């Protein structure tokens, strides 16, 4: 079993940038956790929990990582770094930026159907009309409305003729 096998990324963490940000934050979090533990030990007090973003907390929650356990968090850090290096990424161009719900749905679909650590990037290109253009590696899948309309232009006259008759 690989190191990252027990990790489950939250649906809100969908992009490589977010993953990098979470990793950076987790490093800081671990450092803060270590400092807090040292100070608490010196002061003979109970160690507090450093501040963490909702995304990091969600990641720790999905991965069943105890936020106060330094070993667990360090393990999670290693797992996330391994995922960052290996996770497949799909770049999506859409006519408008999708809302959170749609992003979650699409992330869920990719992680269910394609790969459990699949990451997505979203960009806007208004002239495609709708649908999406997806680039994965060297391949581009164009399922935009613009492409569909332009590649089936002959259907317009066929439909017009059938309606006219």
């Amino acid at each position, binding site marked *: 079993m690989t190191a990252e096998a027990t990790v489950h990324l939250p649906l809100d963490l969908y992009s490589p940038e977010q993953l990098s940000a979470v990793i950076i934050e987790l490093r800081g979090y671990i450092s803060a956790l270590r400092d807090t533990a040292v100070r608490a030990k010196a002061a003979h007090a109970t160690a507090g929990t450093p501040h963490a973003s909702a995304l990091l907390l969600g990641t720790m929650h999905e991965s069943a990582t105890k936020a106060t356990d330094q070993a667990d968090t360090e393990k999670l850090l290693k797992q996330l770094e391994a995922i960052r290096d290996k996770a*497949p990424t799909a770049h999506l161009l859409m006519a408008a930026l999708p809302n959170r719900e749609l992003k979650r749905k699409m992330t869920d*679909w990719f992680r269910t159907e394609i790969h459990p650590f699949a990451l997505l990037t979203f960009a806007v290109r*208004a*002239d495609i*009309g709708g*649908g999406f253009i997806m680039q994965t590696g060297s391949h581009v899948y164009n*399922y935009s*409305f613009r492409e569909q309309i*332009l590649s089936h232009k*002959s259907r317009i006259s066929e439909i017009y003729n059938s309606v006219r008759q």
Partner: protein
Amino acid sequence: MDSLQLILVFGLLAMVVINAFSLFWAMKLNHQLHERPSPKVYEVKVDAGKVLADVDMSEIERLTKQQLSKVASEAGARFKESLDNAVDGLSVRVSDLANNSLLGEFEKYQVSLQALRDQSIQEFSKLQKELDDRRTQLTEHLDKIIQAEGEKRLGSLDERMNDVISSYLIESLGNQVDLGAQSAYIFDMLHEHKDEIKRDILS
């Protein structure tokens, strides 16, 4: 010199002597003919009016006229008879010619004319058929050209119309994006091409 040559020489000399004698005799006869006296010509003129009397003259004129009239009538009758015979013969001849020669020729002419007519009809029929075929070919060719041109123009019009409509649709869609309404299409496309995406994204 043998005896034959001797005989020939004597014969030759004899002939020379005979010829010389003949020439001499002819010249003598010619001289006698020129010396003969020419016959005398007597000119006699007779005046008929003085020889015959007036009564005789009138009788002679009457008889002459009578004889002349008789001869003329006989000549006329003979000429008429000859002419009638000639006309009858000519008529028979023409009739025969018409019945035999001309009719045959006419039949031949008719046969030839009929053959010519048949040939002409055949030629004209052939020409007419060629013209019809050519006209049919030209008509078909023209129909094809017209049809091709029509299809080309219709295709061009359709293409232009498609460009206009698709441009309009794209322009319209660009201003009215509803990703929520498109999510079904998006996930349908993803499901439809899941295997390709998976294969490509994991490679």
